[in-house]
Structure formats: structure tokens, C-alpha cells
């Protein structure tokens, strides 16, 4: 191990915080965080939801629209389309600045289409080729024979606290369960096993055991311990949490974490200066 590595380890010992990826299903990644408190991770969660900048469509100007949907309906749908965000080249515009004035605040796009056919998010062309819809298959509106749609507009960097279209994901956490079988030879073992809706408990060669592989799927609903208090003991760890990010795609998980902490950091700095 290098000296720098040792230093890092020493520092980590001081904090005793650990994070590890425990599962990834579709767009949701779950991390096991150790040595933290609910107040601490909740502040990260809230910062990630409301203070991490992403790109989203903000203004649309219609040239032609003979589609079945009204202009504002389509504009609203466009606003919700999630866009791959290049976090290093774009910034959130200050409140009193028109985002159209500087290239670092906005990106322009246009679309024109003639029916029949589905207008999809993939049809949007942005002035910056790095910006793309994350799900190009997203349907915007279906045009019938003879219907036309043409518009231009801008996508702007923004924060989730203003509108949730700028949130980078859905973020949640739960406790890590501690589940003990006090009496593995209980006569009613199979009905105890059946009491868990998540299938955490099973009977193997006459013994009631906890399926350790499924442990993190426990919702701490308490159904098992409530029905069979003399067989099951249920509690949870005080300083370990399962922190999940359902990523909407604009940013990577690590970017979300990093930006959330930067946002908190700058708030703390501001406050310490003010005091």
C-alpha cells in the first residue's frame, strides 16, 4: 500500500464511514452506508433532490401545431423529457439573468415533423450534440395524416427545488434489518415462514432460517415478529442504511453525490462566514 493509501485509510478510520454498492436493478442502485445517522443522509438526500443542477426544456415556441394536443400540453411533455447533462460545461443561471444571454446557461433545440407518425424525443435536435434525450423512444405526440408540428425552444440548467423536472432522480433510504430466529425448531416453522410477504424466512431440513441473500429486501414491516413474537426477533441497525438512487439518467450516481455535497458545502461555508 502506498503512503497516500495509508493516509486515506487513517482518515477513513477517523470517520468510520463506508459506502458500498449492494445492488443494481434497472435504473435503481442501492448503496450500503455505514457509520452515518438519519439526519446526515437525509440532508444529502434532500440536497440531491433539490440542489443538484440538471438540464431540462424550459421554453418552447410553436410555429405550427395541428396535432391532437394543445401547445401547452406538448410544451409540458417536452419539459419532462430527461436530457443527458454535461455538468462541466453548463451552469444554473443567476435569478436576474436571462438564460438566453450566455451559452453556458442554455441549449437550443428544434423539431419539425409531418404526419402520419409518432413524434419521438429522438426527433429533437439540439445545438450542442452532447445533449440528447436519455430515452429517445419517449413518445411526444402521434400525428395523423395531414397533421404538422414545428417548434423551437431552449433547455435551461435548473434546480429541483424550482421544478421536479430538474431533479436527477428519486432517492430514498431505509434501515438495515436485524432478524433473529430465536427458536429454529418451532413446531409452526412453516407458518412462520409464510408470514413474510418478501419470502425472507424459509424452512430447511426442519429448521427455520433467514435467507441471508434476501435480507436487504426486508421492509421492516414487522409482520413476522408481530404474529410470532416467541420465534422471531426483529430490530434494525442504528448506523447502517440502504441508500437507493433511482437515477433518471441526466447524471451519474457519483455526480449526483458529489454535486449534492458541494451544494451542502457551499451552504455551510456561507453560513460560517455570516456568523
Amino acid at each position, binding site marked *: 500500500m502506498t503512503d497516500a493509501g495509508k493516509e486515506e485509510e487513517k482518515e477513513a478510520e477517523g470517520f468510520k464511514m463506508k459506502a458500498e454498492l449492494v445492488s443494481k*436493478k*434497472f*435504473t*435503481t442502485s442501492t448503496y450500503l452506508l455505514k457509520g452515518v445517522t438519519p439526519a446526515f443522509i437525509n440532508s444529502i438526500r434532500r440536497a440531491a433532490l433539490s440542489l443538484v443542477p440538471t438540464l431540462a426544456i424550459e421554453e418552447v415556441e410553436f410555429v405550427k401545431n395541428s*396535432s*391532437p*394536443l*394543445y401547445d401547452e400540453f406538448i410544451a409540458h*411533455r417536452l419539459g*419532462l*423529457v*430527461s436530457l443527458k447533462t454535461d455538468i462541466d460545461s453548463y451552469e444554473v443561471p443567476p435569478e436576474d439573468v436571462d438564460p438566453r444571454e450566455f451559452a453556458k446557461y442554455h441549449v437550443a433545440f428544434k423539431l419539425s415533423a409531418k404526419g402520419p407518425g409518432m413524434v419521438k*424525443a429522438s426527433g429533437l435536435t439540439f445545438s450542442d450534440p452532447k445533449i440528447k434525450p*436519455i*430515452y*429517445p*423512444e*419517449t*413518445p411526444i*405526440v*402521434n*400525428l*395523423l395524416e395531414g*397533421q404538422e408540428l414545428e417548434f423551437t425552444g431552449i433547455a435551461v440548467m435548473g434546480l429541483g427545488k424550482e421544478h*421536479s*423536472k430538474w*431533479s436527477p432522480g*428519486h432517492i430514498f433510504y431505509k434501515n438495515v434489518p436485524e432478524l433473529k430466529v430465536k427458536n429454529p425448531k418451532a413446531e409452526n416453522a412453516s407458518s412462520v415462514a409464510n408470514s413474510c410477504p418478501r419470502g425472507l424466512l424459509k424452512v430447511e431440513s426442519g429448521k427455520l432460517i433467514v435467507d441471508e441473500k434476501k435480507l436487504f429486501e426486508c421492509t421492516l414491516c414487522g409482520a413476522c415478529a408481530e404474529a410470532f413474537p416467541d420465534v422471531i426477533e426483529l430490530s434494525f441497525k442504528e448506523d447502517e442504511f440502504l441508500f437507493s438512487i*433511482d437515477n*433518471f*439518467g441526466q447524471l451519474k450516481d457519483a455526480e449526483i453525490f458529489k454535486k449534492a455535497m458541494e451544494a451542502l458545502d457551499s451552504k455551510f461555508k456561507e453560513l460560517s462566514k455570516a456568523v
Partner: protein
Amino acid sequence: MIIPIRCFSCGKPLAHLWQDYLSHIKAGKTPKKAMDELGVERYCCRSVFLGNADLADIIGRFRKG
């Protein structure tokens, strides 16, 4: 009317999954199985799929407002 771009409650992008959902249903899968396979986990998102009726094409044949 038309499948919402995102879930009303949690904001998960959903619209791109609608055609896959329909083809799963056509292939005889139950909505539960189809949604499980598409990764639509939370019941807020599932309600968006279950509650949607595609009427935009019918409405599109009439003149707007």
C-alpha cells in the same frame, strides 16, 4: 389520453416503456409480470400504466377547441 412522460408522484420517466408494456400484454402476460419485467416497481408508477387509456388518436380526428 396519452401516456404521461413521467410518473405523477415520483417523477420516474415512463413513457418510453409504454410500447414494450403493450407488446408484453399482447403476448399474454399479466400487467403485474409486464411491469415487473420493465422495472416499474413502485405502485405510483404502476398506477400510471394501469390507469392509462390511449385516446389521443381518436381525439386527433376531431378539430381542436
